[in-house]
């Protein structure tokens, strides 16, 4: 357990520079976006007012300014996409960086007096913690940016939105910030399951190189089939047999099966087949 | 320590031989402290087990003795020291005899040559291989 924590701490530190950069980038871009967009709106408003138009006229013809005015632009979504892409790449890079370039750090990692599966868990935990960290911070940023909005745009022209509305209005953000706890566990559970399966695929490649890529893809395919098998059964053979709650429970089980399978397979590969 | 090791003779024997020469010529005095096995191994760049073996042999031959945990010392036994000297001399003499016999040099001629050349090269007086 102690070694797992030490390794996780180590992995987090290794990524900290990039992580801070992502956080900084997000805050800076979104803030700049907020400032630019609201200033531009307000100067349009000033212009209209100077031309003699009433506030009412302006709100109807120019529209009001809300947080969504920001979220639909690249200023807001851009850093999020960058962060997602970076983390996706890192899901792979977190392993490959120990083998490539001038690094032969994998020697050291494999010779630590600890169960090798801890390497797997530490890297997975690092990804999980970073994802959770980013989405939490994003919420905080939204709240901060919203306060900024209130300062920059006067009441009359502003349409205030609750956090829920902000999220709802931003495409796909609802996936990251689901409405219910259950949905949260489902979304992130599937995401983490996917990370485990990808990790196992990576280990297949590291053990068997070219052949390994095939094995990895096969493994992912089988895992997917196992996971969605309740649904497959539902729509084919059994013909709407299960209640939704039963599907949910069944898939929770198949999900656990896939996760266990990943862990078991990775454990085997790390101990018996891995090579520097 | 001026010892040249070859790779064909057992190292421990070469070490013992070196000590015998040092004892015979009096460079290592009776009762003098010698380096520990490890120090010796380090100085000569040899395996510590080899140094250990050399010391063990020398101890068995009575060339050195060790009291408790103190550093090993050269024997104080005059008889043994004399024997060592004789052994080395005899060895050199026999080697010499064998080589001149193989080219059929008569004894008188050999002795004459020895008398003439003995003092010429001081280096050769230390007895070398």
């Amino acid at each position: 357990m102690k070694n797992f924590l030490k390794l996780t701490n180590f992995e987090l530190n290794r990524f900290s520079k990039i992580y801070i950069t992502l956080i900084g980038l997000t805050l800076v871009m979104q803030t700049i976006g907020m400032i630019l967009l609201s200033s531009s709106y307000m100067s349009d408003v000033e212009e209209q007012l100077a031309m003699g138009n009433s506030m009412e006229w302006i709100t109807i013809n120019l529209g009001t300014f809300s947080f969504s005015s920001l979220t639909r632009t690249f200023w807001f979504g851009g850093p999020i996409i960058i962060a997602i892409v970076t983390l996706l790449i890192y899901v792979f890079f977190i392993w490959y960086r120990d083998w490539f370039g001038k690094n032969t750090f994998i020697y050291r990692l494999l010779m630590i007096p600890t169960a090798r599966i801890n390497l797997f868990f530490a890297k997975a935990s690092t990804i999980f913690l970073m994802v959770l960290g980013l989405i939490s911070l994003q919420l905080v940023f939204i709240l901060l940016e919203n306060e900024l909005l209130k300062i920059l745009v006067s009441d009359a022209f502003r349409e205030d939105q609750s956090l829920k509305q902000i999220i709802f209005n931003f495409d796909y953000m609802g996936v990251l910030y689901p409405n219910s706890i259950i949905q949260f566990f489902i979304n992130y559970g599937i995401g983490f399951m996917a990370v485990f399966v990808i990790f196992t695929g990576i280990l297949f490649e590291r053990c068997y190189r070219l052949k390994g890529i095939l094995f990895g893809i096969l493994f992912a395919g089988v895992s997917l089939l196992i996971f969605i098998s309740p649904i497959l059964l539902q729509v084919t053979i059994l013909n709407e047999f299960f209640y939704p709650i039963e599907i949910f429970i069944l898939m929770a089980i198949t999900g656990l099966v896939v996760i266990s399978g990943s862990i078991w397979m990775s454990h085997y590969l790390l101990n018996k087949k891995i090579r520097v | 320590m001026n010892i040249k090791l070859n790779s064909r003779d057992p190292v421990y024997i070469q070490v013992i031989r070196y000590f015998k020469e040092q004892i015979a010529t009096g460079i290592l005095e009776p009762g003098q402290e010698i380096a520990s096995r490890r120090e010796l191994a380090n100085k000569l760049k040899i395996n510590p087990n080899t140094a250990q073996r050399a010391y063990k042999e020398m101890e068995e031959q009575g060339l050195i003795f060790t009291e408790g945990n103190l550093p090993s010392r050269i024997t104080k036994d005059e008889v043994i020291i004399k024997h060592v000297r004789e052994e080395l001399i005899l060895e050199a003499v026999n080697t010499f005899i064998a080589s001149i016999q193989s080219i059929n040099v008569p004894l008188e001629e050999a002795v004459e040559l020895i008398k003439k050349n003995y003092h010429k090269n001081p280096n050769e007086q230390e007895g070398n291989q």
Partner: protein
Amino acid sequence: MIEVKDITKKFGRKKVLNGVSFTANKGEITCLIGINGVGKTTILNAIMNLTPINSGEVLIDGEKIHKESYEKITFIPDAITMLPQMRIADAMQFMADFYQSWNQVRADELLSFFKLDPNDRISSLSKGNTAKVNMLLGLALDVDYLLMDEPFSGIDIFSREQIADVFTSHLVEDRGVVITTHEISDIEHLIDKAVILNDGVVLREFNAEDVRENEGKSIIDVMREVYQA
């Protein structure tokens, strides 16, 4: 004692190790000798479970390798086992964090013996100094067995002498050391046992002093002999 028992290994179609067996005792320096590519590194990797073998087994003090083994045996490979951006001090801290057998006193001793500055980044070090850091990381562990892959390769003569110094010092005493090299001349007199490899098998395994005594041959003589057979 490290026992390598009849290990085989294929890389693709090629059988690199075709039944290699030998033993290495604690308190002795065992040297694996062979031309480049013969599989010396592969054998060391196999002992440490850093590469899988197809058949055979490796026992360390009678046991197959497991996670605690890494507190008893360590490997100093040809490449540095730390991140290039780490300072030497960071690397040592890492070892202290993860290994109970890490001996900080000995590590500090080695730092000054090798004349290394703990604040230097590993990426900025010369080849010779990198090799020394690597060696430090292994020697400062209180392990029973040390495996070293080509500790003398590609480093200047003064560094090589320092490393040879290490072999005759208390840093290595009582431990079982297995090294690989193709530069035998540097260490003829340091080796207890030689294991000559060729074509995936052990051609001859022998005690250096015994062969000198009984056959009048140096290690290099034996090498010449077995390679020509």
